[in-house]
């Protein structure tokens, strides 16, 4: 159950006709994407094709040039800052470099959203932080600073922080980038475990297509700002589209 209540029959994430440019560079062009409740969508594509930008647009960290983004049916561009923040509480975001707060310990990093958005007593909060860290296998490192952790450990703490408010939607920006194969596999397993434990609506940006097979319900490949193909891993493998063929050959 989510700590922040949301009740709606609409698709959790619905993007239509989304365009975004930086200067003269068009990143996304009239992109449409709907993520259904309980579905995990894996976004694929070459670096710089706007996958991370799409995640940041969804959570309102950047503004779209054109198009619509609806979270549980609510158009985020029309929300006031307070309403946007209410919506953000229902979304967990794992950043590419984990983005842990340097000046706070592991415990305080995970407690950050809890202490601001819940009325938990300090003891309950500490208990909840321990549980979250146990879930990602980091319960031994509560008092460490982020600089004392390896890249994989930082990602796990970032994951615990993203899960702190039991969000309904999870956005993962390259959860396994820059990690060794064993740690990548562990993170992949953690996401799979999450998916089994709860109804997870998620968008995962990754290059690790094989790792993503474990938890993906649907793959979506973006090229030149638009979706070139979407479907199962098998569908991607069978595709005759030159870009998809080249991408899959590179991966396989």
């Amino acid at each position: 159950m989510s700590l922040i209540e949301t009740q709606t029959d609409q698709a959790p994430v619905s993007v239509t006709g989304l365009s975004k440019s930086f200067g003269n560079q068009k990143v996304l062009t009239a992109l449409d994407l709907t993520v259904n409740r309980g579905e995990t969508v894996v976004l694929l594509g070459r670096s710089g094709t706007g996958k991370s930008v799409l995640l940041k647009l969804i959570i309102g960290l950047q503004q779209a040039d054109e198009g619509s983004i609806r979270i549980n049916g609510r158009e985020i561009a029309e929300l006031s800052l307070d309403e946007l923040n209410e919506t953000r509480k229902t979304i967990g975001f794992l950043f590419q470099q984990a983005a842990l707060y340097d000046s706070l310990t592991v415990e305080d990093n995970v407690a950050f959203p809890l202490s601001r958005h819940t009325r938990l007593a300090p003891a309950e909060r500490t208990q909840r932080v321990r549980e979250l860290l146990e879930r990602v296998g980091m319960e031994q490192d509560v008092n460490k600073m982020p600089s004392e952790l390896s890249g994989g450990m930082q990602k796990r703490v970032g994951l615990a922080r993203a899960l702190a408010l039991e969000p309904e939607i999870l956005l993962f920006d390259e959860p396994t980038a820059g990690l060794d194969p064993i740690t990548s596999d562990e993170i992949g397993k953690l996401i799979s475990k999450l998916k089994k434990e709860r109804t997870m609506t998620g968008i995962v940006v990754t290059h690790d297509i094989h790792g993503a097979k474990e938890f993906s319900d649907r793959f979506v490949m973006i090229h030149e700002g638009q979706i070139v193909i979407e479907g199962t891993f098998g569908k991607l493998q069978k595709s005759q589209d030159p870009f998809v063929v080249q991408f899959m050959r590179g991966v396989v």
Partner: protein
Amino acid sequence: MSTDLTVVVIAAAFSGGLSSEWSVGGRDTVQAIRTLLISFFEWFGELGRFCGQLIRSAVSPPFEWRELVRQMDAVGAKSFPLVAVAGAATGVVLSLQTRDSLIRFGAKSFLPAVIVFSLIRETGPIIAGLVVSGRVGAGIGAELGSMKVTEQIDAIEASAVDPFKFLVATRVLACITMLPLLTLVADFCGILTGWVANTLAEPVSLRLFLNHGFRSVTFHDFLPSTIKTAVFGSIMGVVSCFQGMRTSGGTEGVGRSATSSVVLSSLFIILADVVLVRVILVFYP
């Protein structure tokens, strides 16, 4: 004319990367000046918007008390030794320099008063302002800059927390409250070492030195000058946070933010001092 020149010089400070365009032909130089002026006014426009957002965040609850205390420690307690040493050195220099001059004019007995007056009214506040702006300005510029490029500020926003409330308001408030206190430290150390330097040349008791020094000092000499450092604090806090929050371009950008935070804070503190001294003289002649 001098105003125009100042505008161009400050504009150049804001957009250092454009300086190479100066060496090209006349039309390009005009274009470069235009670009500099535009970036100059854009900078102030953005700063105005930044201040508006800062005030909105600072006055609306919930307040980040814990972070405020942490920042007060970082700005105040950790600057204490630096300000004490700078104030002490200023006291010695003032004593050595003025002693010589006053003996020449036969006004040696005024030495304690000159040291106390000078430190309390101007030297203490400006020394504290500049020394702290060097330390804290660079620290804030670099810290917020690196938080920006490592997406930590995005992460705060994604957690539905206002980064202005958590990062900016706390730092600016810490600078505003701590700088007057640090000024007292600079004043105290300066007066003490002023006496030590004086007594090494010609022994005089501390009590006599202080009696002479403070005989004609009034509360009006002390209070406005000390409180004006709160303005210095707000300048260094706002400018450094602003430079830090608009960092782009990786680690190089972080370096640029740290440097420009110090340069612009110090520059604006000196310019503000000119205005504030004039204003104080109007109200407390």
